């Protein structure tokens, strides 16, 4: 009898030792980590692009595209259901359709950045920058490229095979696609693709798949490195959007240029008459003119009346809010010149008040004894002195030196779920690192830190 009891006890205990229990435990973790699929390479969390759910899948809460930057790789995380992401990875065939197949790119070139070009009826196009693309011998010039990826898959899946590659591009420009963004800078009726190359800006119409619409070249100095940042907004409050290009200079002085497109008086009606009306350099703010990292990251801060300000990341220890109205820029800093503060900037509503805060990455910040693991600081834009964040997050299991926590920043909005919209609470900060993505479903800086901002999973069952 005793042996039987022992056996049953052991079986009961064994049943209680299901390794899968940890998954269910971690499902309740406030921060859900999405590991990159195998073969993604590094810098996995650098390119993060929140996607709207497809029109035929309105219950889809949120989707996030992420891509490797040092080798061709692409995946979409569907937060469809209980908040855990379902990863849809582009296969080698998919990558081939994007011109990223092994036989096409010889395995080189990753996706530098991505942008969402919205279309009618909730449809849209994903714009991918592939600056290191080197086509096979005899199949083109090694100048980089961009790709358009239609978001029209069945059952909400991404149809990678629908990708469209513009035929060649600015063959005279290397690293076409160093940064990409969407915007309407040429008074177009639809979103345009803004593409940065080594020394210029290119604007492509979405429907134009064979040629670059117009360029604004030659104003960028020969880069000392291949870092570019891009932000598109109506900085001048003139009704059109302008392009802000960040140009950090390693060992030099970083700059930000604002590019304004206008109408060529000589050919006022022709599209080709659009020209690069202004290429205004933005001087470094006062205080640290020699910062080479100035312009490493940009983000536009929408204001009322269509105007936008610009936040410029200026590592190693600063970020600036450049007001469009000429006010004195506001500096944000963590006071640690070794932390690479300002490598990434983004606007994320972390406290659920409906107003986005400024997120600044200190990519090499030490975390509780772990050297150079990375942190992300959150600041109120309009209040505070810029040195006191309302929250600082990091990997609870930091990785020294190569963690790169904060290498990518984004925000997911679960308001897309029609029946389960949570309003302003339904914002989920997303932080990328070298190997994956952190999604903060509960946030220490929130008004109620114990409250999960994850929508009720039952909503997804509708």
């Amino acid at each position: 009898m005793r042996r039987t009891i022992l056996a049953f006890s052991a079986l009961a205990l064994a049943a209680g030792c299901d390794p899968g229990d940890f998954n269910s435990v971690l499902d309740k973790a406030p921060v859900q980590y999405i590991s990159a699929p195998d073969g993604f390479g590094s810098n996995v969390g650098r390119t993060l692009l929140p996607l709207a759910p497809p029109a035929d899948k309105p219950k889809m809460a949120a989707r996030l595209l992420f891509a490797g930057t040092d080798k061709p790789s692409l995946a979409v995380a569907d937060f469809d259901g209980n908040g855990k992401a379902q990863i849809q990875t582009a296969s080698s065939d998919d990558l081939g359709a994007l011109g990223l197949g092994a036989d096409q790119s010889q395995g080189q070139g990753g996706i530098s950045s991505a942008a969402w070009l919205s279309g009618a009826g909730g449809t849209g196009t994903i714009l991918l920058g592939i600056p290191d693309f080197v086509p096979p011998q005899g199949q083109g010039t090694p100048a980089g490229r961009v790709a358009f990826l239609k978001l029209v898959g069945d059952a909400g899946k991404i149809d990678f095979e629908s990708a469209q590659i513009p035929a060649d591009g600015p063959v005279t420009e290397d690293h076409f696609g160093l940064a990409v963004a969407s915007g309407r800078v040429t008074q177009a009726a639809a979103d345009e693709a803004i593409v940065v190359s080594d020394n210029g800006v290119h604007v492509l119409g979405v429907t134009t798949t064979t040629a670059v619409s117009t360029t604004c070249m030659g104003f960028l100095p020969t880069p000392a490195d291949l870092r570019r940042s891009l932000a598109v907004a109506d900085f001048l409050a003139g009704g059109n959007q302008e392009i802000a290009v960040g140009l950090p200079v390693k060992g030099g002085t970083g700059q930000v240029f604002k590019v304004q497109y206008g109408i060529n008086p000589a050919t006022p009606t022709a599209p080709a008459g659009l020209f690069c009306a202004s290429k205004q350099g933005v001087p470094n703010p006062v205080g640290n003119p020699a910062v080479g990292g100035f312009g490493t990251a940009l983000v536009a801060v929408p204001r009322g009346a269509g105007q936008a300000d610009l936040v410029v990341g200026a590592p190693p220890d600063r970020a600036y809010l450049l007001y469009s109205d000429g006010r004195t820029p506001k500096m944000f800093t963590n006071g640690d010149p070794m932390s690479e503060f300002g490598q990434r900037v983004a606007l994320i509503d972390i406290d659920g008040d409906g107003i986005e805060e400024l997120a600044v990455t200190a990519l090499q910040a030490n975390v509780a004894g772990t050297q150079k693991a990375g942190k992300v600081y959150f600041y109120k834009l309009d209040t505070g002195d810029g040195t006191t964040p309302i929250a600082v997050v990091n990997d609870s299991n930091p990785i020294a030196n190569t963690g790169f926590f904060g290498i990518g920043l984004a925000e997911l909005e679960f308001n897309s779920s029609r029946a389960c919209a949570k309003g302003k609470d339904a914002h989920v900060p997303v932080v990328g690192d070298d190997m994956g993505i952190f999604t903060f479903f509960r946030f220490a800086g929130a008004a109620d830190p114990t409250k999960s901002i994850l929508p009720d999973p039952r909503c997804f069952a509708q």
Partner: protein
Amino acid sequence: MERLLKLALASTLCLVGAVVVPEHVGQAQEQTAPDPALQAAKAQFEDAQVLYLKEQWDDAAAGFLSAYDKKPFSSFLFNAAVAFEKAKKLDRAVDMFQRYLDKDPQARDAADVKARLESLKALLAPPPPAANAAEKAPAPAAVLPTIATKGLVIIESKPTGATIYLDDKSKGIFGTTPWQGSLEPKPVKLIFEAQGFKSEEREISPRTDKVVEIYIALSEQHFLGWIEVVANVPGADVFIDRQEIGAIGKTPYTGHLKPGKHTLWVARPGYQTSQKEISVEPGTATTHTITLETVDYAVLRAGGKESQGAQLMVDGTLVCAMPCEHQLKPGEHQIVVQQEGMEAYTTKLTANRADETTIDMQFSPKPPRTKAWAYAVLSVASFSLGIWRGVAGMGVKDQINKDIGNPARLTNSNDPRTRTGQIDYIEADVLFGVGGITALLSLWNFLESGPPSTAAVNNINRTTPEQKKLSLVPFGLPDGAGLAATGRF
């Protein structure tokens, strides 16, 4: 039986009697060894009597005294005194009579002898001086009564001290043995009595010229009784008074018993023992008829090689440690025999009244449990380690849960402790698996049995006359098994 025969023989000898009577008595008496002095005295006495009859008084007197010298019977002195008186040797006569009285002052004729002695003394006294002539004339001699010699009767008995009556007990006790004296020369009946002995009577004819010797051995007073015990079941054991000393015979039984009350048992396997109180009268023969009833149970005897201490279980109840015997109610029973280190033996047995079933066990050893214990130890160790690892994993999980619930700590789902905990769990599961498998192996080895133990089961019914019987029973050997033939012829 032998004892009874001895008892009967002794009793018979007592009945025959050990009475030794001299030749003139003529009855069956035990012959005692002759006393040479007595025989010599007797011969001398008879010679003296012959001389007396020839009136050779002096020689007769000398003969009687010679006989007295050989055997100092007082009668010899009396006869010598008479012979001296006849010989006119009154002084010697007075002397002999006086010795006679001195020798036997309680003699029945002591008073007469004293009177005669005084008379003789008077005759011997000198006459007193005469006062005158007339007075000087001699006085006439006194006239003495006639006297004669007397015979001798010697009476002895076994045991001594027996009471002697003459002719009729109403006359009172005559004397006690040993006795010697004279009796009137006429037939007389002697009656002997002694406590615990049977009374005896003898007729004798004393004579004056003879010495009569009588020796009688009295028989003990008790006698054996004769009994016959018969029963409706021949061959039943017969016990008297004490069962523990064993049966004295089997029915039908005949034999002697001491008089008195006895307890009689008649017993036979398969029948209820009958007990009866009987009374035996000496010298009687009685027949006791016993009816034995069949027992209302069966008897199970269990034993066999290496069965010492084995447990006999009947219908799930431990009844005895083997070898042993157990009574069964009629009907079907489940018999189980268990012996330490041996395979159990199980059988069904149908018991009838008066059945006697013998189970002769042949045990088969159980296989060694070394492997079972080894597996058990390994199982316990595995379970213990598994519990240890499981608890460790639970600790990790609890800590993660705690951290998840901590608002100040943004635990992420990629927590590396998860891997530690999962490894702990996997280790625990593996160990539990090993523990479970080894537990099953242990259980299997514990339950593993060797060749079954066997038994030779022999059943007879005690109420049925034994018949020649041949039966086949299974048996087991280290190298195999087969059938063994057992028979009763």
